[in-house]
């Protein structure tokens, strides 16, 4: 398995574990609402304020959309993005595989973009949970 693919799978695995944990917390919180103190420790997974969480959410949505589109444009070998591809003199030597080398580089950058978009999906989910926790905390205090 190639390195980026391994990384992608490990990240997804970690995210799934974390999301399961959060879902169980949220289920418990829903079953016992009205701020009982025992569940306060679970809600202390809140680590950023409402504004930071909202900014993180907006940033992640933008990141997902833009990086996904960039990934698509790289994998379709768009000529406008030629300057963002890290090719060297060696890749452009005369030979049967010169064009294929460039295309492979394009694909690599494209996959990087897709992985980054996936990471942003995770960050977006995290920020969304923080936003919900902040709202819940607001209601509980009052």
């Amino acid at each position, binding site marked *: 398995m190639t*390195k*980026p693919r*391994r*990384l992608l799978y490990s990240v997804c695995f970690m995210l799934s574990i974390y999301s399961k944990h959060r879902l169980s917390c949220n289920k418990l919180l829903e079953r016992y609402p009205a701020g009982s103190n025992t569940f306060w420790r679970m809600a202390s997974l809140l680590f950023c304020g409402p504004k930071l969480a909202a900014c993180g959410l907006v*940033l992640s949505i*933008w*990141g997902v959309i*833009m*990086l996904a589109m960039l990934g698509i444009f790289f994998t379709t070998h*768009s*000529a*406008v*993005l*030629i*300057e*963002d*591809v*890290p090719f060297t003199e060696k890749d452009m030597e*005369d030979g049967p595989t010169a064009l294929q080398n460039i295309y492979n*580089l394009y694909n*690599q*950058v494209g996959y*990087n*973009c897709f*992985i*980054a978009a996936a*990471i*942003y999906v995770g*960050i977006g989910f995290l920020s969304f949970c923080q936003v919900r926790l902040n709202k819940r905390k607001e209601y509980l205090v009052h």
Partner: protein
Amino acid sequence: MSSLFRSEEMCLVQLFFQTESAHNCISELGHLGLVQFKDLNPSATAFQRRFVKEVKKCEEMERILRYLEKEMVKSNIVIAATKEKEMVPCARDVLELESTFEKLEQELREINRNHATLRQNLIELMDIDSLLRMTEDFFEEAESLLTYSEPPSEDSVSMTVSSHITSRRNSNSSTSGALHLSFVAGVIKQERFPAFEKVLWRLFHGNFVLRHAEIQATEELQAVRGAVKKDVFIIFVQGDHVREKIRKVCEGFRASLYSCPKTLYERKQMSNSVMTQMEDLRMILRRTEEYRAGVLTRAAEHVQEWGSKVKKMKAIYYTLNLCNIDITQKLIVAEIWCPVSDLAVVQNALIKGSEQSGSSVTPVLNRIQTQQTPPTFNRTNTFTEGFQAIIDAYGVGTYQEINPAPCTIVTFPFLFAVMFGDCGHGLVMTLFAVWVISQAESLRKWKNEVTDVVIGGRYIILLMGMFSIYTGLIYNDCFSKSFNIFGSSWCVRPMFHPHGPWQNETLHEYHHLQLNPSVPGVYSGDPYVFGIDPVWNIASNKLSFLNSFKMKMSVILGVSHMLFGVTLSLVNFVHFRKFQDIFLQFVPQLIFMLSLFGYLIFLILYKWCITLRSETAPSILLLFINMMLFDYQSEHVLLYGGQKGLQIFLVLTAVLMVPVLLLVKPFLIYRTRMKTRHQVFGNNPNDQHGTDTRSSFSHHQKDEMVSMGDISVYQAIHTVEFCLGCISNTASYLRLWALSLAHAELSEVLWRMVLQVGLKISSGMGSLMLVVLFAAFAVLTVTILLVMEGLSAFLHALRLHWVEFQNKFYEGSGYKFTPLSFDSLLKTQQ
């Protein structure tokens, strides 16, 4: 005619209504928000007006309300927001409200005073309590001292170390026999203690024992007293004289002294009594606070309603001060400015008001003719409000002048977008504007100045964003990259052998190669369907092409905008029936502008349309300069046949228009004045007719305040301003090119220096770096490109409108219509 193109027609109306129904009528008019009261007593100062006492009463009530609100905020009581439209109270209710307020204020002040006193007592008792507790050990020491002064026995071995030391210190002074130690006990601030100790040592040379300990700061102590640290001290001395001196020193250091009983039993009793007293005081304090909270909560339910009532009363009294009261004290006369189309609504409101007050006489409306200039009223809705505000910021339009606001709704966002031109940034801006529009009400509660400005301009930002997406698609620029949607018209492959000159070796020899459009196949012949060809994004001479394009586009846009402004002045002349000015001002101005700058636009468009060889193509700027200097040498290349003749004709026409603008109008005015004067003097035989004409002549004399000299100077200034302004304003529109270049370059730099670094890393860590760098890219895009460049482009587009566009037709010397409106009054307060 009620539309945004022109300000509304206003009329001056006299109102007569009875004094009893005055309050209700004015309150109805205030709720309507359509009339502006004229000041009928302009010579009276604020203190000479009739209702000045009532206004003062209202202000006093407002002060009490502010005090109440402050108290509520201090005790964290939520002020309930009321939403219903309450009826305005009449004069009787004012007295009732006044007495309620005064009672509330007195009560609150008394409660606060008592609270402060009780708290002071509690602090004292707490001090005494801590004093008693801590001096226990000190007294034990003192007892041991007394016993130790007796001849030592076996019991003396069981002394504590501290008493050992003290005994050593005092053993010199101890004599056989019982010592009579008296003491002074008290509490002093910790920061003063070292100085206190030093003074005592200097005074008494060690003939005393001083013990001190810090009072442990418990939470309760901190809540009551604050963070001040205090020390308990006790001084054991011999003799009363010394004690008196010590007392004086303590007073000097502002230490509070408490009498401490000598025996253990008495001290215990005192401690107990202090404890019970403290408990009582705490309970009383709690009760006081509860009572205070209760009073404030009851008041909090009504405080907003009272506030709006008082504000309305004050506005009504202020308005009544502007009116005339009849001699019989029964009738009030008011003069109001009111839109003609709203007269019926105003009348209905007045009838409703008088019915409410139960008076039998309906108010009378009497429309009067006047020579005074009415205020300018532009009826706007939430969408057009923002645009009207930015026009009014420069100058409120003269009465019934053409209103530039409807044109500004389109031209302002468009000129902004020409300078901003990026569809990615435009999309972000549009989404932001949509969010602000949907959350406008909840964002208003933040009450921040910056957010208020953003909320006021939310529709402007929306339009700016949408137009930016459009110009971004034309410039083919999205976060500095182009889209290739329709297929580029340029192709590189035909440049190679066998079609074209390039070989494999050419690639190795040269770093930069230029595509040659005359080689067949390189340029397809049809330009890109919409916008700039995407091939320019990866060309290294991109800027040479884009600069030329954007500069010419700016000049075209600028001249069109200014021609539009000149045309609007024609509309003004037609409306105000100044037909003479059409031929004396509008036509020469138009001809001047068209023959010089209209011809420039023609040259630009013509050069774009014909095929030229780039080596021999003439520069438009040089052509224009030579045209003005009449410089036609044979080696200069011209664009088309007959150009020399046409250009000479146009320049001469333009130059001819200048004296027309300068001289004809003053000459005509002079001639008409001479004619009237001649007519008067020529009619001497007929005496009766003569007196009439003489009176009309004297009337004319009064109108002739403006002398001929003033008129000629004004006309000269206007001509010079227009003619020179044409050139400088056209050049000023080049900022459209300059700002769009700056924006494009900043965008490209940001992409290349931030995001490309992450894209170029091909290893596995590339994606993580990309995540971090994308966040940086997003933050920098928003702060630098959206906020900074956005504000800059906004400012420049606004300046282009205010100066270059509006000085062709706009007078802007009116005053704004400010109606009596309770809604805006309450909104501005909140």
